[in-house]
């Protein structure tokens, strides 16, 4: 799913942060990706390797931290792990009213010189 446009956006964000922090070379880019976001880490790696050519990120590596999905029950306030097809509160068996995390898609940290 649109992994190339995601990586292009990552390159923009990282380049801007690098310039703000007077870095001239990026060594690592670390992303946080929620497991419900629909983005495949394998495809991101593939897109990253292709898109960083000729940019400041050219020699950098990509780390991806997967964020597990967590829902919250409005009846008992319990927070519990959810999946696409299983969002029932283990206590009350009601459908989870809000997703606390799992849709993340952000640049967490960068390392550079």
């Amino acid at each position: 799913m649109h992994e190339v446009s995601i990586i292009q956006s990552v390159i923009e964000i990282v380049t801007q942060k690098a310039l703000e922090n007077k870095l001239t070379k990026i060594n690592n880019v670390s992303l946080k990706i929620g497991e419900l976001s629909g983005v495949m880490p394998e495809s991101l790696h593939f897109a990253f390797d292709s898109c960083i050519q000729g940019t400041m990120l050219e020699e950098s590596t990509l780390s991806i931290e997967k964020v597990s999905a967590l829902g919250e029950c409005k009846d008992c306030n319990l927070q519990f792990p959810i999946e696409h097809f299983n969002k029932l509160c283990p206590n009350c068996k009601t459908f989870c009213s809000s997703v606390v995390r799992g849709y993340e898609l952000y640049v967490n940290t960068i390392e550079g010189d």
Partner: protein
Amino acid sequence: MSEIKVVESILHTHEELTSRNKQVFNEKGIYVINMMSSPGSGKTSLLEQVISKLKGNVRIAVIEGDLYTTKDAERIEAQGVPVVQINTGGACHLDGKMIKGALESFNLDDVDLLVIENVGNLVCPAAFDLGEDIKITVLSTPEGNDKPLKYPRMFEDSGAIILNKLDLLEFTNFDKAEFYKDINSLNAHATIFETSCVKDQGINELCTWLNHQIDHKKTRSWITPKIGLPEMIK
């Protein structure tokens, strides 16, 4: 070597534009639908039917998203409502910037309901909010009842789901009981409609529900900015 904490959303440019679009919709009290489905599920046909039934009472505008051609926009234009075609030129979804550009073509003071017909695609559009009040996903019976499980995100995020082409049900192996079971496990809060455009089935129910949503948005938007209102009521 130094490590820098960034914590910036990868989609931040899109999200900023979307939130500005949403603010405009709320200020003007416009109810906005992001209509999604795979290609050929009948989004445009449904829209034609809804427009023909609602246009006497509701001021409707439509944004048509397609990779290429103005075929859908021409069909909507024939209904006599303002329409803007966005051609993404191959991109798989609409985003905040495209919507912002399209909005410039409308007089938003004359719009109660804005329907954004997204690019036919069950995957990518689900990840891009457009500032809408509701996402509506259309699934047609010939596509098969397995689609919600295969493409969960879109069905998961939808406030309403329309099961279309009900007239073809008997010619397919679509299992309605399985469909309802799967939707219930994915998104128990979704309102579900069953429709057939050729048999004019379920469209009135959909329109009644839409009218209610549009009225609700108008009331809400009228009350929200008037902070002094409780004082006046006293």
